[in-house]
């Protein structure tokens, strides 16, 4: 104990340097998470003091809330499709781009990264998937004789999830894509020469035995970012298919959370939803970490 104290005194300047960030971080991240957990066991509408009701929110959420089941289903469909696909795409594109000449490489990096930093540009998809014949997608399909009547992309339950998936994929290369590009550039080049001597035959083997093992840290970082994004899809769904969407076909866990948190003001219930989502995210992350550790071995 005394030893720890001594050590802490030795580092007192470091604590001072860290203080501003740590205080803000605790205030705006750690405390809210803990509070959210606490509130999830209460009934709380922001007007009256919270009232403790034990696990009621959770039992209601998991056993009685049919819309939540739809939301979970949609979230899992979206996450299982967009998560791995955008992760793979980000990696494949980064890998291909890496072989280009520097100028072209910078250009292609911009092309693939731009959607995720372009603010509200994804609203152009409203025009593309507009439900009348002015919509680009409909006009295109009709022009080439695939359809006679326009498809109401954003209101027809059969198409809503597909549209969200397409737009989300378009948006989602983002941070992990940049991390991969950089990771590839930092792979030790002599490893490839050594590999060629050791009998590596083609680029696929090179990828599996040299490239992937060398950039595991970036792969892991990308996975964490991608899981978080793909499980928290909400903005795209709300903007494109409406909120609430027809038959809740575009409803996700986060839109359900927003519904109870900012419209119905049942904060206890909203916090229970948040906790369930948090647990799903941690679970998914642990699983992916396990899988990635085994890659390329």
């Amino acid at each position, binding site marked *: 104990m005394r030893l720890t104290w001594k050590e802490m005194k030795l580092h007192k300047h470091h604590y001072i340097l860290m203080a501003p960030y740590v205080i803000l971080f605790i205030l705006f991240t750690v405390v809210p998470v803990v509070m959210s957990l606490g509130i999830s066991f209460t009934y709380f509408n922001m007007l009256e003091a919270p009232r403790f009701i034990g696990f009621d929110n959770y039992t209601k959420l998991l056993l009685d809330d049919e819309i939540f089941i739809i939301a979970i289903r949609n979230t899992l469909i979206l996450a299982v499709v967009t998560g791995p696909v955008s992760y793979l795409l980000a990696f494949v594109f980064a890998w*291909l781009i890496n072989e280009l000449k520097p100028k072209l490489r910078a250009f292609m990096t911009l092309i693939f990264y731009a959607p995720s930093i372009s603010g*509200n540009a994804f609203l152009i998809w409203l025009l593309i998937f507009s439900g009348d014949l002015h919509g680009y997608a409909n006009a295109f399909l009709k*022009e080439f004789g695939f359809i006679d009547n326009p498809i109401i992309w954003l209101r027809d339950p059969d198409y809503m999830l597909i549209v969200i998936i397409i737009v989300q994929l378009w948006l989602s290369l983002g941070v992990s894509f940049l991390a991969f590009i950089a990771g590839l550039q930092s792979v030790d080049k002599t490893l490839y020469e050594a590999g060629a001597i050791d009998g590596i035959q083609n680029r696929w083997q090179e990828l599996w035995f040299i490239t992937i093992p060398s950039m595991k840290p970036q792969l892991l970082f990308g996975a964490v970012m991608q899981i978080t994004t793909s499980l928290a899809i909400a903005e795209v769904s709300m903007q494109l298919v409406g909120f609430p969407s027809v038959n809740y076909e575009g409803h996700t866990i986060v839109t359900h959370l927003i519904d109870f948190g900012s419209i119905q003001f049942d904060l206890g219930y909203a916090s229970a939803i948040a906790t369930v989502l948090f647990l799903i995210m941690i679970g998914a992350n642990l699983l992916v970490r396990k899988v990635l550790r085994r890659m390329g071995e």
Partner: protein
Amino acid sequence: MNIIQKWAFNRKIKKKKRINRSLAGDIFLFALLAIFGLFSAYPLIMTASNAFKPLDELFVFPPTLFPRNLTMENFRDLSELIGNSWIPFSRYFFNTIFITLTGTVGHVLIASMCAYPLAKYRFPGRNIIFALVVYSLMFAPQVTATPNYMIISWIGLIDTPWAIILPAIASSLGLYLMKQFMEQIPFELVESAKIDGASEYRIFFQIVMPLVKPAWLTLIILLFQRLWTTDGGTYIFSEELKPLSYALRQIAQGSIERQGTVAAVAFIMMIVPVTFFIISQSRIVETFSHSGMK
């Protein structure tokens, strides 16, 4: 010799250097790259080109990839609409600049200050703090939206720009990247400065900070992009404190005659972060090469 044969021939010469490539593989992979590149770029090009189209051209089929009659009409309409609004445009603009600048500068400074000890020293509490940061990367901000609102209102920050700035300063992704970057830097310089008797603060501001300049840019663009598009949401009610993107969004909401203005708004929102990224691209990639998780 036709062009394909020529290309294949050149390929063969190169093959001597890089034995592990096949022509079929190359064609397949780069076709893939081109197709998805088009998929990625098309909506952005449409957004940009729509902003310069006259209204009647917005709805023709096939949609023209580039405007036939280039016009600045949409931007003129936009500035007129903004000019008629109750709050002067410059006010919205100033609000956004203030939020973006304060938030970004604060984040770079404060996150770096915290990242330096985390990256280079072992002391009690270090592992806990870093573990919390890594775990916080794993959940979406919406999860804590409600308690965040309560905390911000308790501190009395509701309806001030600080409600947006302070949480942004404590973003965990930036701290994480900065720490990974600092770990890679050789610290002999720091050691020698210490022997010469420089204080920790002096070392940090005069030696460490200049060394990590490329990493600043990464943090800047990540946060810049987020703050530039923030609309104040639930935290700011006073009209004269609202940021630019809120004002633009209000204008963009409306009937079909506004479609041209909507396109102009989308273009403005998009072009600023994208330009910023183009300028800083090479430096950013440098930071991410150090950004692995171990």
